[in-house]
């Protein structure tokens, strides 16, 4: 399996610029998720990588071989890139086995399928036609078909989007396991943050035709490069504050801060925007005395104004009493199935350090 290296990739359709100097490096054997809003050019990127579209500029290198750029354009059929489009796109006129062996040479077709059928756990279904399979089974066949020709990398376009929510997690784990087992370099495109965070080794966020940030799931959530990214990955409260000697002073209190702007831009009394993740806000019953709350954040009283119930946890909207500016309510995560009802009073405080950008 090979690594993928993309440099300065440009692609436009008429006057519409889709990819504008995209840079990305995918280590061999890893699973990288391309995360982007719909219409951000994810599918275009995959199709350029597969050789189905021609890049306007830039180079694509797979396993050290240039397949696009510098006067080179290797067509799809000679690129050895496995492509699994949305919905799998199985050949409806062929059986599962014939689908999987489609890309093999004639003499390999007879025996070649068995091992792969075992790998994806579909040995019993070899003689079935695609319309006789469930969505998850179809997805596995599509993957096996792409892997059969031993591609250098595999591209998955929204592989789980068409599956029922109940099925999705299972299929995702299956696919992940198969890819790990075969140590396949994989690029997976999705618009689903949760999917990217839970599946990928590395997430590349596609924005304005470029990779805005490429990091591990943990780093992406913990250290987004800007406010927009913070909002895009997970839920975020963004509040105003003023810098003060390594801390930021907000109406939620004085909080230990990490400055994410230029170092020479940092000075006291510098206005700033503060990121507070919902799970950083801790909630207590209002009738407690709160005397143990001696953190820098202090304790504030608030009112619950909205509840988004998710079973395993809830996202509450709370309005802080005596808030200096009537900003939007804060989002707070409350674990467990019990949560205070709407209108009830709570006390809150902020824990841990916060990220700060120049306002």
């Amino acid at each position: 399996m090979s690594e993928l290296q993309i440099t300065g990739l440009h692609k436009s359709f008429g006057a519409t610029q889709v990819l504008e100097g995209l840079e990305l490096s995918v280590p061999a054997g890893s699973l990288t998720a391309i995360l982007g809003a719909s219409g951000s050019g994810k599918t275009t990127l995959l199709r350029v990588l597969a050789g189905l579209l021609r890049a306007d500029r830039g180079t694509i290198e797979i396993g050290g071989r240039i397949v696009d750029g510098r006067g080179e354009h290797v067509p799809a059929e000679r690129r050895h890139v496995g492509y699994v489009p949305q919905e799998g796109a199985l050949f409806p006129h062929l059986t599962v086995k014939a689908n999987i062996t489609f890309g093999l040479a004639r003499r390999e077709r007879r025996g070649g399928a068995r091992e792969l059928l075992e790998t994806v756990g579909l040995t019993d279904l070899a003689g079935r036609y695609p319309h006789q399979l469930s969505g998850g089974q179809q997805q596995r066949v599509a993957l096996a078909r792409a892997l059969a020709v031993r591609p250098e990398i595999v591209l998955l376009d929204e592989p789980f989007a068409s599956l029922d929510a109940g099925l999705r997690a299972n299929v995702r784990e299956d696919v992940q396991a198969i890819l790990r087992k075969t140590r396949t370099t994989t690029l997976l495109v999705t618009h689903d943050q949760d999917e990217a965070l839970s599946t990928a080794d590395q997430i590349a966020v596609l924005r304005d035709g470029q990779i805005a940030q490429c990091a591990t799931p943990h780093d992406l959530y913990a250290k987004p490069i800007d406010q927009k990214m913070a909002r895009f990955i997970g839920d975020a409260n963004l509040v105003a504050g003023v810098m003060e000697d390594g801390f930021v002073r907000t109406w939620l209190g004085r909080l230990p801060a990490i400055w994410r702007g230029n170092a020479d831009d940092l000075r006291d009394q510098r206005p700033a925007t503060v990121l507070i993740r919902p799970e950083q806000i801790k909630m207590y019953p209002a009738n407690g005395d709160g005397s143990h709350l001696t953190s820098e954040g202090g304790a504030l009283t608030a009112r619950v104004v909205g509840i988004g119930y998710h079973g395993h946890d809830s996202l509450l909207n709370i309005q802080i009493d005596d808030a200096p500016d009537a900003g939007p309510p804060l989002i707070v995560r409350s674990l467990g199935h019990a949560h205070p009802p709407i209108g009830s009073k709570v006390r809150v405080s902020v824990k841990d350090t916060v990220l700060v950008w120049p306002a």
Partner: protein
Amino acid sequence: MSEPASATLQARSARPFGLVARARAAQRPWLLLALTLGVAVVLVLPLVFLLVQASDAGMATISKLIFRPLTATLLWNTVKLTVVVTALCAIIGTTAAWFIERTKLPGRRVWAVLVVVPLAIPDFVVSFGWASLSTWVQGFRGAVLVMTLAVYPLVYLPVAASLRNADPGQEEVARTLGAGRLATFWRITLGQARVAVLGGCLLVALVLLAEYGAFEILGYQTFTTEIFTEFNVSFNVPTACALSLVLVLLSLIVVGGERAVVGRGHFSRTGPLAQRIPERRRLGAWTPVVFAGFSLLVGLALGVPVGSAVYWIIESGRGYLTGVSLFNAAWHTALYGGFAGALATLMALPVALLAVRHRRRAYQLLERTTYFVLAMPGLVIALAFSYFTERYAGGLLYQSAPLLVIAYAIMFFPLALVGVRASLAQAPPALDEVARCLGQRRPAVLWRVTLPLIAPGLAAAFCLVFLSAVTELTATLILIPTGVQTLSTQFWAYEQNLAYGQAAPFALAIIAVAAIPSYVLGRYFDRLPSRTLQAP
């Protein structure tokens, strides 16, 4: 953000033009484009030949021949008949389609087959069936009766298909918005079927403009009958040519008119292609009336022509039945029809591939222009070919089997294109792309993926052309190789000699040969809407 973007834009436009052009050109499907252009050239040939013919005669002669009272009479006859029959077909076809698709009419599956079968009976056979029984069926009233009964399925078929495919959700929403049943039917149902009704009417009008045999039997004079007489009987080429020009112009007006009317308004389903069957209406006390109506329609359109042919066979006794010539004629009919079907389907393939798989405006326009053949009546095509091969090709191909097959293929090309295109539009292009990523070159992709997927569409295209060629008379009479007879020309020879007993077996043979592809087509188009090439 905007600054770097405009910088890239500048950098882009600063690139040498040649580089951009080369990058784009590499993706162009040259082979398909060349094949399509080749097909387009073949399709234009009849028109070119017609113009050659006209210039041979000279502009002065042509205009003198056009601007005279005869033309006015023919124009009045042709337009009068076209308007009346088209209107009647629209009413009968739409009504029948609504009752079969939207009500609980008893036996509607059987009716659905029976009302389409008349399509397999050539117009000249229907005409023969009626005219040989009663002298009342003559002239204008005869032509209206016969042609309406012969061609109303051309409206029924598309309207029934569109009612079957129409999104019942739109009707339901209209009802919840307070529109009554009648208002819903008028504003939504008919609105959804409008394109289908107009499309059917276009086909009816074009058939009427091109029909020869039926009108000849009924003694009703139109452009086509007059052109045929001038060319084949009086050998008056300039007159035939002048009248052909007017006929082509008339057909072009019909085609253009339909395009203009359909062009307005937008029709689509909202939501996915979930096949929800709309609730059928109960007919209640009206059931016997509607039942009687369908019985009458089928009796007149199917019973009379078939019954009449059987009557003449019995009446004339067995002595006339000539088994060998019947078999011989059937063989040639099937042979020519088969080759025409194969050729037309083959011609339609690159055109459809280019238009559906390479979505460029220019390609789609190119595809669209091939439909202009619709406006070339078979008689005009045959006439132009016959004249050109005799006069300019030194007799090469003149009255040869290949020329007849080519003429058929050109005449019925639009039918083949419709069949191939519909199935190609349903085969997801993602499948082709996956096949390429699996290392298959384009020819292999076509062979292993695209063709198997559109095989039913290719079969439908073949059947449509075969069916049309088998029931064709006019062009066949002109182009048929000397000494050979097809079912229709042999029927015609006997009919013209008033040998009804000998003509009748040939009429039944035509119906029998045409019935097989009709059945295949019926099954195909019935399955088309609910057919999903890709499982969900």
